[in-house]
Structure formats: structure tokens, C-alpha cells
């Protein structure tokens, strides 16, 4: 078991290293020059090259990559004279657009995205799995069809439209959140209610998108599982229908859903771009979008990419472990 985990960790680490290198290579060959971008209106080639040096772009990509990796362990120092400063380890570089160490920036964006992801995850699991179970239970009745249509319509609208409609026609229309409070970060530790209300609608709009997949998946898994022999056995013992569903059917039916749920959740942790954009949440998605489209802020792009990949890789690992925990057949004594 320990061996398995450490092997997986090692291979995950390799994946992350490959991804980080890839990002450096890719951005090294982009036709955009962050140095030029930072140069301003009056721009001479010398200023550009000065900028390039300041941004650490005047060396080959592998040197940049190496510096980056090194910084994670020993921190990094920038500038000279009065303008000198240090990003302590773990340093993921310094953003000259936001004038802060990337680790600080990530630390402020991460709680937002994590809140968004966790809440949306819980909501869509409840919505998706709940509807799925209900559809399976009452399959081929109007309840089944209605839930199917509801979810399909909810999801066939592109994210930006459904999110926007929720924002404009529900949130703003009924003044559920004051517009100036929108996107404001409230820590769940100090202001749990504000935290909840500020995230509720983003959760809902994200959950709507994901719920459909889960409804369908749950429905078919529940139906499939309920035709298993062991469900018949439970009935033969005199187990009530309720318990048959919740205790005997749902666990095996949900185990495979866990796999995709874990990965979806990890994907969300990398940032739900559109939702964050629409609801002005200062999370990782918006951070990356801005960095990638507007600023070409390499340290941020690299770091968020690696972070997002880390989430996926770790989620993969956790899903495997959790699956084994749920399904004793995979567990080995």
C-alpha cells in the first residue's frame, strides 16, 4: 500500500515536472514578449532588453525553468539597490504586473477557487445524484422525463449564458447580493454567512452544468445496480425498499461516479474561468485568464498551470485510494 502510494507520487511528480517544462517551452516560443508589454508608451529596444533581464527572460527556457524550480526550494531575489526584494521559499516567481510574489497571489486566489469548487461540488453532487436516484426510482414516469429535460436544458445553454442569466435575472434583479459586494471574498472562518451568500449563486450556476452528467450517470448506474443479484438477495431478506436503495444500491452505484467526480472537482480547482469571470470571483481561473490573455505574466501562468495539474494528479491518486476504500474487492488485506 505504502509502496503503491509512493510509486504513484513519484510518477505524479514526473508528470508535474514534464508539465512545467512544457509550459516554459511553449511560452518561450510565443510571439508575445512580456518584456515589450511591460515597456509602456516610450519604448526603446534597450528598455525592452532591460525589462527582459528584469523578468528573467534573457536566458534560455531551461535556465528559466531551472531558476523557477530552484526558487520553489530556496526562494528568489529580484532587483538591486533600493529596489531589491526577495520572494521567500516556496517561491513561484514574482509577478511584475501585480507587484507581488506569485506565492502570495496564489494564496489569495486559492481560497476563492477552493470555496467555489467545494460548494459547487457538493451542490452538483446533491442535485445530480439526487435527481439521478429519483429518475431511476421513478424511471419512465413523467418525473424521470421532467428531471431529464430540466437538466438537459440547464446544461445545453453555454456556461456564459446560464451564468449571466442567473446573475442578471435573479441575483441583481432581486437584489440578492449588493452589486458592490459581488465577488468580495469573505473568509468562511470569520464571516461564514457572507461567505455562503456570496458563493451561493456561482455554486448554483456551476452545479447546473455538471449536474446533468451526474444525473445521467447516477440514473443508469442505479438502474444497472438494482438489477444485480445481490439487490434481489437484500429484498429476499425483507429489507425495505428505502434501505435497498440507500444502503444496498447507492454505494456500488456511486463508486464509479466517484472517479469522474474526483477529476471534475480537481479540474474546477484549477479555476472555473467563466463562472469566476461572470461573478467577479478573484480566483485562479480569472487570474490565469488575465495572465494568459492580457499580461503574458509567465510566472503566474506557469504556476497556475502546475497547480491545476497538481490538483488533477492528486485527485487521481485520491480517487484511486477512495475507490479501494469503498470497494472492498479492490482493497487488499
Amino acid at each position, binding site marked *: 500500500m505504502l509502496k503503491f502510494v509512493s510509486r504513484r507520487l513519484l510518477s505524479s511528480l514526473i508528470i508535474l515536472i514534464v508539465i512545467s517544462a512544457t509550459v516554459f517551452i511553449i511560452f518561450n516560443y510565443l510571439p508575445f514578449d512580456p518584456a515589450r508589454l511591460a515597456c509602456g508608451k516610450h519604448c526603446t529596444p534597450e528598455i525592452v532588453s532591460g525589462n527582459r533581464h528584469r523578468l528573467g527572460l534573457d536566458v534560455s527556457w531551461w535556465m528559466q525553468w531551472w531558476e523557477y524550480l530552484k526558487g520553489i526550494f530556496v526562494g528568489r531575489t529580484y532587483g538591486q539597490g533600493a529596489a531589491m526584494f526577495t520572494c521567500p521559499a516556496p517561491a513561484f516567481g514574482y509577478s511584475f504586473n501585480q507587484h507581488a510574489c506569485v506565492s502570495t497571489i496564489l494564496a489569495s486566489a486559492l481560497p476563492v477557487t477552493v470555496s467555489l469548487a467545494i460548494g459547487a461540488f457538493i451542490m452538483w453532487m446533491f442535485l445530480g445524484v439526487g435527481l439521478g436516484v429519483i429518475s431511476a426510482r421513478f424511471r419512465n414516469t413523467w418525473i424521470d422525463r421532467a428531471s431529464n429535460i430540466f437538466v438537459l436544458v440547464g446544461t445545453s445553454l453555454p456556461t456564459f449564458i446560464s451564468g449571466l442569466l442567473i446573475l442578471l435575472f435573479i441575483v441583481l434583479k432581486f437584489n440578492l447580493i449588493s452589486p458592490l459586494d459581488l465577488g468580495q471574498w469573505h473568509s468562511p472562518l470569520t464571516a461564514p454567512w457572507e461567505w455562503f451568500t456570496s458563493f451561493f449563486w456561482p455554486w448554483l450556476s456551476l452545479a447546473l452544468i455538471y449536474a446533468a452528467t451526474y444525473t445521467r450517470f447516477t440514473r443508469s448506474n442505479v438502474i444497472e445496480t438494482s438489477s*444485480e*443479484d*445481490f439487490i*434481489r*438477495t*437484500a*429484498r*429476499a*431478506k*425483507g*429489507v*425495505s425498499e428505502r434501505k435497498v436503495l440507500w444502503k*444496498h444500491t447507492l*454505494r*456500488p452505484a456511486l463508486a464509479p461516479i466517484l472517479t469522474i467526480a474526483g477529476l471534475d472537482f480537481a479540474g474546477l480547482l484549477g479555476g472555473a474561468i467563466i463562472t469566476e469571470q461572470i461573478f467577479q470571483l478573484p480566483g485562479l481561473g480569472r487570474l490565469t485568464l488575465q495572465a494568459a490573455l492580457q499580461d503574458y505574466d509567465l510566472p503566474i501562468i506557469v504556476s497556475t498551470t502546475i497547480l491545476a495539474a497538481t490538483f488533477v494528479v492528486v485527485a487521481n491518486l485520491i480517487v484511486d485510494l477512495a475507490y479501494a476504500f*469503498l*470497494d*472492498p*474487492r479492490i482493497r487488499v*488485506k
Partner: protein
Amino acid sequence: MSAHNYLEVKKLNVSFPTEDGLVAATSDLTFSLARGETLAIVGESGSGKSVSSLAIMGLHNRARTNISGEVILNLPTGSLELLSSSEDTVRDLRGKEMAMIFQDPMSSLHPYFSVGAQIAEAWLLHNKGNKSDGLKRAIEMLELVGIPLPVERVHDFPHQFSGGMRQRVMIAMALVNNPSLLIADEPTTALDVTVQAQILKLLRDMQKEFNMAIILITHDLGVVAEFADRVNVMYAGKNVEEAPVRDLYYKPAHPYTLGLLRSIPRVDQIDTHRLQTIPGQPPSLINLPMGCAFAPRCPYKELVPNNLCTTKNPELSNFADNHLTRCHLTHDQIESVR
């Protein structure tokens, strides 16, 4: 029929509406059973054995199954017709008064719960007690069905057991509440002969101990010969013959039973002859044709005048004492072709 009958099944019909038509899985099934007695239901795959036993247990999805007829349990508290009883009433009987073990021990146990938990659940459903009482009871049952080291193995999961042991767990689970009726649906088909022998011995011992009525469903006439008191032969959803076990083997009264017995090679007889066969295939259960379902394969249908076999459905009739058959042939004709 005897008044001591514990279970009476009368004119049981089970059919499934499907895309292709109505599947008449069981029609006019009639039999009865006393406590301590073993009735075997034999017949080929698809002849309606499982469907009818599930109907007795009330395990069909009523929304998608048409069931008619009567299933009467004569309990000490009075007799009860199950098909018209409420779902709750029947559920209370399941697992306590009547229990069932299934054909495939591999898939009939829940893979996610330990065997102990599964047996305990069956007990706790009908008895007062907490989890540890249930577990204690599970250990007792495991011991009873001959699982070595029950105290340790009670926490194991089904996949950690061999096929024979799983079937024993199934039996333990079915017997945990001392049911009066046990339906065993092909309990040994998935097992090897040596293990089959173990399981059958176990079942017999249990029957003696609890004075159970057992319905044994199988298609193995060898098992029937060993185990049953009476036999019900099914073909295409109907019971074509019912007889005490000896009568059935030595004086079969239905051409299908006859063919069946002849087509079985026997270990105890060295014969290098060709096996006798029943030509043709069992019929589809959708829109069964008029007449006897066995008629297309019956070598003796010519003996019956007026194409009666292909036009009229024979009724279940007395062939001899306690011996019923569903055939147009006369008593003498049967005796002569046997």
C-alpha cells in the same frame, strides 16, 4: 389435497409485457407443500422455475409483471394469500417465514459488505438487538454451515470466500431466522460436484433441524433423485407432471419427462450407445401456440387423434395416486410408450 399443506400455489400465472409481446413465463402453476417436505421443481433453462419462485416470494416488480392466481401460506396464525397482501405484509414474511437462496453465490452476495454484516442485517430485520448481537448470531450461523474459523471470517468480504463457502454464507443468511419455507433456486449449479455434495448434505441437515419446507429448483435430475420427496416438472411455463420422486423416475407419465430421463448419460451405467434425444428446441414463451407446448417435439403426438395435441391445451390430470400429468395421451398409451 392434504389439509396439512403449508404452502398452496394455485393457478399461478406470471407474465411480462415486453416489446416483442407478452412473455408467459409461468402459466397455471399449481402445487402444494407441507413442512418438512422437499419439493423439487425441474425443467430446462427458461421453463419458468425462477420466475415462479420469485412470484411466491413477492420479489417481482409489480409494476412490470402481471401476476395472477393464489399463493397461500398456512401460518399458525391463520392462512394468508400473498399475492393480494400488501407489500409490507409480504416483506415482513420475507427473510423470516420464507427465505430464498439463489443460483449464483458469486453475484448474490453484496460485494461491499462483510458477510457478517449481511447475515446480521437479515437477523436484525426481524429481531430486536444491536449490531453486536447480530454479529454474534452471524458467527453462530457461519459455524452451523461449517465455515472454519467463523469468528475471524465473519469480517471478511464475499470475494475472499470460495464459491462453495459463499453458497454456505447464502444458506446461513437464509436460515438465520429459522424460516418455515426455504426456496433454493439452483443452489449448486455453479458449484463442482464435490462441493455440491457438501452443500446438499448441509441443506438436508438443516431441513431436519428446522423442519423446513423446501422448494428445490434445479435442472439436475441427479440432484432431484437424491434430495426430493416430490417433483414438479416444468416445461414452457407449465408444470407438466407432478409426482413423488420414485414414481417420476420409474413411472414417468409425460413424454417430456420420459425424454429427459432418457437423454441423460449415467455414470453408473457403462453404455456406449447413442444417447436418446428430444429433437427440436424449447419453444419461445411469447404468444405460445394453441395446444400442448411440447407437441412440436413430442414423438407420440400422432397417437392422439384429431391433432388434439396441437389444438387443445391439455389439463393437469390425475395419472395415478398423487401423480399428476398434463398430457392428452391416455393412461394406457403412456404405459405402453414408456
